[in-house]
C-alpha cells in the first residue's frame, strides 16, 4: 500500500568518538587554523591586493617588532588571560557567566573611586590594599547577584549576566559624570601628579607587575581547579548535579562560592586595568575582553595553561592586525574580522575532534 514511500538509512551517520589521540586532535586544530589563515589571505588579497605573506610578517612584527610592542602585547595578553581565568571556574560548573565585562568594569570603577576620593591622603601601601579590596568586593557583588537568583529560582544566568554588563556600563558613565563636572564625560588620568594609587613600575617596566600578578593567578587557578577540594567540587557539579547530590555536595553553595570567585578575579582585572595600566576609567575599560575571554576559556578547554596559548593567539591577531591596519592604511577593525574568521574555524573544528562521521556503507537486508 505504501509503494511510493522510499525508506533509506541516512547517508551520513554521526557518532561520538572518544579515542582520538592527543596529537591527532591537535593536528585537526592546526589544520583549522591554517585553513582560516588561508581564507584570511584570500580576503586580504581581495581587499588590499598585497601579498598576504608580507601582511602576516607585518603582523608578527606588530606583536614582537620592538621592545615596546612586545610589552604592550604581553600586557594585553595578561589582561585577557586574567579575565579568561575569571570566567573559567564558572564555566567549568556549567554556569554561563557572560557578565565578565560588567564585573571587570565595576572592579575598575571601585578602584577609580578609591583613587578619586582618597587622592594622596593614604600611605601608598594602604591605598593599594584599599583599592584592591574595593574592586574585589565590587566584582564579587556583581557576580553574586545573578548567582543568588540562579541558586534560588534557577533564573537564566546567561541573560542575567549579559544585562548586568550594561548596568555596569551606565554606572561607570554615571560616576564619570559626577566626577567630571565639566560635562566632557572623559575622566582623564586620575591623580596625574601625585600618582597616588598607581601600581609601581618594577625593573623600570610599567606593565611587569600586572603580568607577574596574572602569571601568579594563572598558576593558582590551575592548581585550584586541578588539586583543590573546591575545584573538585566544581567539576562534579558541572559534570552531574545528580552525582553532586549523591555525595552530599551543597550545589547552591558551590554555585555562589564559585561565582564569587569568578567575580573576584574579574574585580582584580578591573583593578589592574585602572591602577596598573590606564590610570583612568572609561566605559570601554574592559574593551570587550569580557566577551573575548569567554571564547578564550572555552577554546582552552577550561585549562589555565592551554588558555595562555589561546589568549596569545587572540591577542597576537589583534595586535598584528592593528599593525597591518596602520601599515597598509586599513581600518583597525580588520583585527576583529580576522579574529572572527579564525574563531569560526576553531569553533567548528572541535566537531571533528569529538565526532566521527560514518558514511553509509554496504546494502541493507530485505531489499
Amino acid at each position, binding site marked *: 500500500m505504501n509503494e511510493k514511500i522510499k525508506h533509506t538509512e541516512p547517508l551520513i*551517520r*554521526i*557518532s*561520538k568518538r572518544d579515542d582520538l589521540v592527543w596529537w591527532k586532535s591537535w593536528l585537526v586544530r592546526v589544520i583549522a587554523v591554517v585553513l582560516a589563515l588561508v581564507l584570511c589571505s584570500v580576503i586580504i588579497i581581495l*581587499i588590499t591586493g598585497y601579498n598576504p605573506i608580507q601582511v602576516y610578517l607585518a603582523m608578527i612584527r606588530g606583536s614582537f617588532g620592538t621592545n615596546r610592542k612586545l610589552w604592550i602585547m604581553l600586557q594585553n595578553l595578561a589582561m585577557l588571560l586574567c579575565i579568561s581565568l575569571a570566567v573559567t571556574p564558572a564555566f567549568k560548573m556549567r554556569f*554561563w557567566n*557572560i557578565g565578565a565585562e560588567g564585573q571587570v568594569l565595576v572592579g575598575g570603577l571601585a578602584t577609580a573611586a578609591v583613587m578619586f576620593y582618597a587622592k594622596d591622603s593614604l600611605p601608598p601601601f594602604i591605598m593599594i590594599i584599599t583599592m584592591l579590596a574595593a574592586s574585589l568586593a565590587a566584582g564579587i557583588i556583581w557576580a553574586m547577584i545573578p548567582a543568588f*537568583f540562579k541558586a*534560588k*529560582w*534557577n*533564573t*537564566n544566568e*546567561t*541573560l*542575567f549576566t*549579559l*544585562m*548586568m*554588563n*550594561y*548596568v555596569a*556600563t*551606565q*554606572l561607570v*558613565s*554615571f*560616576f564619570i*559624570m*559626577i566626577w567630571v563636572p565639566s*560635562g566632557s*564625560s572623559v575622566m582623564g588620568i586620575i591623580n596625574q601628579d601625585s600618582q597616588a594609587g598607581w601600581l609601581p613600575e618594577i625593573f623600570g617596566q610599567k606593565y611587569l607587575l600586572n603580568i607577574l600578578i596574572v602569571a601568579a593567578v594563572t598558576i593558582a587557578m590551575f592548581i585550584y581547579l586541578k588539586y583543590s577540594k573546591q575545584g573538585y567540587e566544581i567539576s562534579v557539579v558541572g559534570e552531574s548535579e545528580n552525582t553532586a547530590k549523591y555525595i552530599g555536595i551543597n550545589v547552591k553553595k558551590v554555585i555562589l562560592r564559585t561565582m564569587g570567585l569568578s567575580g573576584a578575579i574579574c574585580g582584580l582585572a578591573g583593578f589592574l586595568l585602572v591602577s596598573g595600566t590606564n590610570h583612568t576609567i572609561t566605559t570601554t575599560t574592559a574593551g*570587550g575582553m569580557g*566577551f*573575548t575571554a*569567554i*571564547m578564550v576559556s*572555552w*577554546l582552552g578547554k577550561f585549562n589555565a595553561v592551554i588558555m595562555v596559548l589561546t589568549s596569545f593567539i587572540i591577542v597576537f591577531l589583534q595586535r598584528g592586525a592593528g599593525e597591518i591596519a596602520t601599515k597598509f*592604511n*586599513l*581600518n*583597525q*577593525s*580588520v*583585527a*576583529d*574580522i580576522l*579574529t*572572527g*574568521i579564525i*574563531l*569560526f574555524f576553531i*569553533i*567548528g573544528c*572541535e*566537531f571533528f575532534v*569529538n*565526532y566521527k562521521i560514518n558514511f553509509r556503507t554496504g546494502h541493507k537486508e530485505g531489499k
Partner: protein
Amino acid sequence: MLTTIASFINAAIIQGIPLLYGATGEIITEKSGNLNLGIPGIMYIGGISGIVGGYIYEYYTPEPVAALCIIIPLLCSLLASAFMAFIYSFLTITLRANQNVTGLALTTFGVGVGNFLGGSLQSFFGKSGSISLLTTGNYYKTPLPFAEKLGLFGQTFLSFGFLAYLAVIIAVICAFVLKKTRIGLNLRAVGESPATADAAGINVTRYKYVATCTGGAIAGLGGLYFVMDYIAGAWTNDGFGDRGWLAIAIVIFALWKPDLSILCSFIFGGLYIICTYIPGLSSASKELIKMLPYVVTIIVLVVISARKRRENQPPAHLGLPYFREER
C-alpha cells in the same frame, strides 16, 4: 506641552524601530531553541551591507532610480544578515558548537566587518571623508504621503520611512505565525522540546536553520533602518552602539512574544531618549535613566523565574544543543 509629548513619542518610535527588528529576529531565533548572541553583529552587518549596496549603486549610476535605491540595499542587507545567521546555524546545529561562544564570535566578526567597511569604503573608491548616501537615505526617509495633512497625529505616527511600518508589520506577522499557524506551532515545539518535535515527524534541523536565518535577516533590517533612515545614509563607526544587546533584553521583557515586543521596543526606545525630554536633569542622572531598560529587564527575568508561570518562561530548550541519540 502636547507638542513635546508628540515629539517624544515620535522620537521613542524612531529609537524603537531598530530594537523592534532586532527583538523580532531574536524571538524567531530563540523560539527554535537557538540563543543567538550574534544578533548585535548581524545588525551591524545588516546596516553595512545596505550601505555597500547603495554606495556601489549610487557610485556607478549618474541618476539613481528610487525603486533600485531602495531594493538594492534592502536585498543586500537581507542576504548578508541571513548569511551571518547561516554561519551561526552551521556551527551550532550541524557542527554542534557551543551557542554562546559562536554567537559572541559572530558579534565580534559582524561589528568588525561593519566598522571596517564603513571606515574604508570611501578609500576603496578613491575618495575621502565619511560615507554619505543622501539620495538613498532620502528615499528611505520618505514618509507616508498624507502624513503632512494629518497635523500633529500625522507628524507623530506617520512621519517615518517605510522600514518603520515594515518593522511593525513583520512583528505582527511573526506573532500571527507563531500563534496561529502550523509552522508556528511546530517551531515552538522545536524550541520547547526538540525530542518531542522529532518524534512527531518534524524536521528539527530544518526548522532551526530556517528560523535562525529568517531571524537573522529580520534583525539585519534593524541595522539597515538605522543607517538609511535614522542617520540618513551615513555610517559612523560603532554608531549603532549597544542597541543589539538592548534588542536581546526586549526579547525577555516581551516574554518571547513578537506582538508584545512592538510595545516594549517603543518603551525601550523612549527610555533611551527620555532624559533629553525631562527638563533640569543633570548629565549624571541621565546616565542612570539609561540604565533603566536593563534594570527593568533583570527584574522581569527574576520575576518570571520566581513566579514560574509556565507560559512566560524562555523556550525550555533554549541554548541547548539537540541531536537524536546515537547508538
